[in-house]
């Protein structure tokens, strides 16, 4: 039963994506929407990204300090370990999980509301491919802007660690800075960015899918947005495992 229904959903999702990835009726209108979505989904997420990144960066640094008190470990390992955590997992996977909550629920409720108030029917009746018109700009905006968010998060997280060192003097600032520079592997940055592209696609397409097929009223819109966040979070975690295995081995 469960397998059958999930396969049915998967099929419906694929058909939905086929409708999304077709040529827009009017490029100009779709481009305008794309710019709007970048502002709404991307730029508006920056404050959240900054706040979370600074704090996680700071906490990571403190934890690393507290948990690596062995005399055999050099002090700069605090910076080094913080950097690896941030680059490898936090700024891509965890950040995208958080964005799945913010952006995903926003997308699902917006599209879901348009569905239950018949705005999507109104588009269809005019002859607009509503899936393409509403969803494609969102997916493209998320995929293009996620890179900015990820890189932004890397810098602010490391800066959060730096601030902790500077304010509390856990580790001398120069040692921390040495730590975050030493044994740097550039591929990790690309790995984080590539992962996040997949996650951005998952967040925007899954949330749109849940919103697009809402039936009923306001209550169902709420449910759809919860389901969208849960499903996209699980998919992100699953993809994380797969992509890590593929790219880091």
């Amino acid at each position: 039963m469960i397998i059958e229904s999930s396969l049915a959903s998967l099929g419906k999702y694929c058909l939905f994506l086929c409708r999304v990835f077709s040529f827009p009726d009017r490029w100009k209108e779709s481009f305008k929407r794309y710019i709007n979505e970048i502002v709404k989904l991307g730029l508006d997420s920056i404050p959240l990204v900054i706040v979370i990144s600074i704090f996680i960066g700071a906490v990571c640094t403190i934890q690393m300090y507290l948990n690596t008190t062995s005399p055999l470990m050099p002090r700069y390992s605090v910076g080094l370990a913080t950097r690896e955590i941030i680059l490898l997992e936090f700024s891509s996977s965890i950040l995208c999980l958080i964005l799945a909550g913010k952006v995903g629920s926003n997308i699902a409720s917006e599209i879901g509301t348009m569905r239950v108030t018949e705005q999507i029917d109104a588009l269809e009746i005019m002859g607009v491919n509503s899936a393409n018109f509403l969803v494609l700009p969102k997916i493209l905006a998320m995929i293009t802007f996620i890179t900015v968010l990820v890189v932004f998060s890397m810098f602010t997280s490391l800066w959060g660690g730096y601030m902790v060192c500077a304010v509390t003097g856990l580790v001398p600032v120069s040692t921390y800075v040495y730590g975050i520079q030493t044994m740097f592997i550039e591929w990790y940055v690309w790995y984080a960015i590539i992962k996040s592209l997949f996650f951005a696609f998952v967040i925007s397409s899954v949330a749109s899918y849940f919103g697009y097929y809402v039936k009923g009223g306001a209550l169902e819109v709420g449910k759809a947005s919860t389901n969208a966040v849960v499903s996209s979070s699980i998919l992100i975690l699953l993809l994380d495992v797969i992509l890590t295995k593929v790219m880091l081995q």
Partner: protein
Amino acid sequence: MIEVRNIKKSFDGKTILHGISTSFYDGKTNLIIGQSGSGKTVLMKSIVGLLRPEEGEILYDGRDIMRMNAGQMKNLRKEIGMLFQGSALFDSETVLGNVMFPLKMFSDLTPDEQLERAHFCIERVNLKGADDKYPSEISGGMQKRVAIARAIALNPKYLFCDEPNSGLDPKTSILIDELLSDITKEYNITTIINTHDMNSVLGIGENIIFVDKGHNGWTGTKDDIFDSECQALNDFVFATDLFRRVKNYVKATRNDRKEGVK
């Protein structure tokens, strides 16, 4: 003219439309009436192609939409305007933006001409001066009028209205009815209106189709309705004391007139 032949539609095994056949005429206000839940919206959505009936034919001046390919469908869509029950205005667009929308997407007019056409439509529905308001800032009646303006922006041949005066006060309802009726005559549109409002039925019902729990109930005009023998229709239309009195009055005056002729 739109001809509907024997359309059947069911959801999850539950049949909603049991083979409806009827015709809708040019330049007339065609009404689909029936109780809530009788399948009026499903019928209308099937006719415009938002739902796909399992059986039947739907002919737009001879063109069967059940056999159209995507391109033909798209062309037909440009000839159709639709007014949804909840207005379905785009929340993120202003009044002007809503009316401009179909023009921007589908017309070959220049931006200036589009603006001119949008203003013309907004004035036609007596909403001059509301251009920059958002749908959430205007009353239900105004929203309906914006939706009418948007529906007629591309000069449709067919106009569909799902309960255009639900949720409106009687006076505003009559204004909307009159507006729809005037537009129908002015541009010779095939207008189809879903309603369960008796004022509309008796006011603008030039061709009335009564849907009785998904079955063809009765067809006629607002004048025929007083003589109908159809029990379900009478129960529906003359449900209130007021309308029973209207019926008795109309019948009495008709008899007087007949006797006068003699």
